[in-house]
């Protein structure tokens, strides 16, 4: 039986339209053999949680540059809990002040990738977290 590809939802929450990072990551993950669903712009946490459930994804990646992360991330995680999807790791990339990182990790963000991160680092993180190896070691 062919191995199921890792499915990733890449989402742009909030009003910001700067989608360079989201697009680069979507393509890099796809090139690394993952299945990527990109939500497009201006998604509310409700829309993202619904898309994640419907697409049955293994990972959710959020691209946030606008400073709205402290509002958007906790709400999304809460919605995922309501849907019993708390085991789906949520990772974020973008402009995130260092002081906000502990708080985001505390509410359950699995990883935060700052500007300058190599795409391979994100690929590796996802493999480790939800790839076949992760299942065995857990």
């Amino acid at each position, binding site marked *: 039986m062919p191995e199921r590809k890792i499915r990733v939802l*890449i989402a742009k929450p*909030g*009003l*910001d*339209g*700067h*989608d*360079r990072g*989201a*697009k*680069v990551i*979507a*393509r*890099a993950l*796809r090139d690394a053999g993952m299945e*990527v669903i*990109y*939500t*497009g*712009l*201006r998604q*509310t946490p409700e829309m993202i949680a619904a898309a994640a459930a419907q697409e049955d994804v293994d990972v959710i990646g959020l691209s946030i540059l*606008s*400073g*709205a992360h*402290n*509002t*958007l991330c906790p709400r999304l995680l809460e919605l995922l809990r309501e849907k019993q999807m708390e085991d789906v790791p949520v990772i974020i990339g973008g*402009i995130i*002040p*260092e*002081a906000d990182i502990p708080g985001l990790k505390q509410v359950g963000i699995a990883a935060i990738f*700052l*500007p*300058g991160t*190599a*795409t*391979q680092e994100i690929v590796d993180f996802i493999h480790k977290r939800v790839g076949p190896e992760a299942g065995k070691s857990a």
Partner: protein
Amino acid sequence: MSDTTKTAATVETAQKRRASQHEREWEEKTLQPTLARSPERLAEFTTISGHPIRRLYTQADLADWDVERDLGLPGEPPYTRGIHATMHRGRLWTMRQFAGFGSAADTNKRFRYLLTQGQTGLSTAFDLPTLMGYDSDHPLSEGEVGKCGVAISSLADMEALFDQIPLSQVTTSMTINSPAAVIWAMYLAVAEKQGADWKKISGTIQNDILKEYIAQKEYIYPPEPSMRLVIDTFEFGMKHTPKFNTISVSGYHIREAGSTAIQELAFTLRDGIEYVDWGLRRGLPVDEFAPQLSFFFNSHSDFFEEIAKFRAARRIWVKTMKERFGARSPRSCALRFHTQTAGCSLTAQQPYNNVVRTALQALAAVLGGTQSLHTNSLDEAWALPTEFAATLALRTQQILAHESGVANTVDPLGGSYFVETLTNEVEAGAWEYIHRIDALGGMVHAIENSYPQREIAEASYRYQMAVDRKEKIVVGVNEFTAEEQPLEVLQIDESVAQQQAATLKRLRDERSAEEVRRRLDALQKAAEGKANLMPFIYDAVKVYATLGEICDAMRTVFGTYEETAIT
């Protein structure tokens, strides 16, 4: 156009160079032995955009170059050397730092601080709800109020923003696009209240919706009604505010989205062509509205490529205005531009390195003949700048202007074999794209077919892969890395949103609801027809109809736009 074909073409041209006898001897006697002893660092040298750069440029590269036709003199076509005869000797560029955060009062304080520090013009950053035409208390505004810029929901906020700043004496640039007509109407209302003469006030509204569809993606309405609004402002400005730039056709965001230098240049100028086309279709005489069009470019890290881009921009625009549009006024033909250093080049790692990057990028802009300049702050890969960081960025410009001596002569690089060759190549690359978009039926059609979006996404991915593979070095990121201490950054809390909500509630209670309704209805009715909407928007603004209400009146008629997302 793929990079491979472009590279091949350039190499071929290089081989066709008619090198002098001396140069050929040099190759044999001096160069070859050197290469045999010690090969060069790289097999191929390219700009940050991937454009090939040769070892040496000589007279042979300029065999087809005509000093009168291609270089000329400053203040005269083709404006390669600049649009003014004396350039920065006559007047330095305007130091215009983009600022905006929190409430109107917070930003007013920063504005007044920057003016006391020797800044010579204002530039306003609006928050995302404002850019998207939502009031601060709209549900979608949650978490975004005052974060990326200042929150402006009504004329009352605009009055607070420019409190004690005389609009008759300062020029103001406003980075606002889809709701530009509304924000501009608010600005004009403040000017009127201050007793400033509309015929004399000067400034710029960005108002460039095409690059929003292409790159920055803060659009509300579909292209057709959006373009109508832009042309409405052209027409209004032509009649009432002759010194105001009614648009700043922007490459900045195209570049930030990951384009190459040539793509930035080509897409921006093709956007400019599209606006002129639509203005003419409205029946506006070209020499009456074109002088109010201005441009805005990015200054990225590859020094000479950027200088070549600015020089080529002026050459393409004068040819376009004269040959394509039959413009006669020099003011229609001379491309004036603002520059901002490249935000996307700033690194979160070792942020103080950003001061050096910004200084070099600013130098390129000055040598490229910019009319105004924003220098980024060192902390912007983390957050909006602190006052300390913003001051240092302004000081960078002042050092360039007053200490470096680079502003003492006009176009100091004019006649350089390398700079002139690169200017020619960048220009040729841009024309190829412009012709391709012409063939696609113009920019609106090209956008609807995702053509520029796809080209930029390709270039952006190519660059990221080059950085990941260390083919392009980013100091402190993929080479020369180090452990470091966190930086002190500007924090904007949610109290701004609460304040804004309270202010809006009070405003809605105090104004005449009936008058607001009447003027919003008039605007909506006008939007259904063909009238110029500026007077209707102005009327609504004056009675404190909010930004969200005015944009909603037009949303009802125009609908909203969703792009086809490409990844």
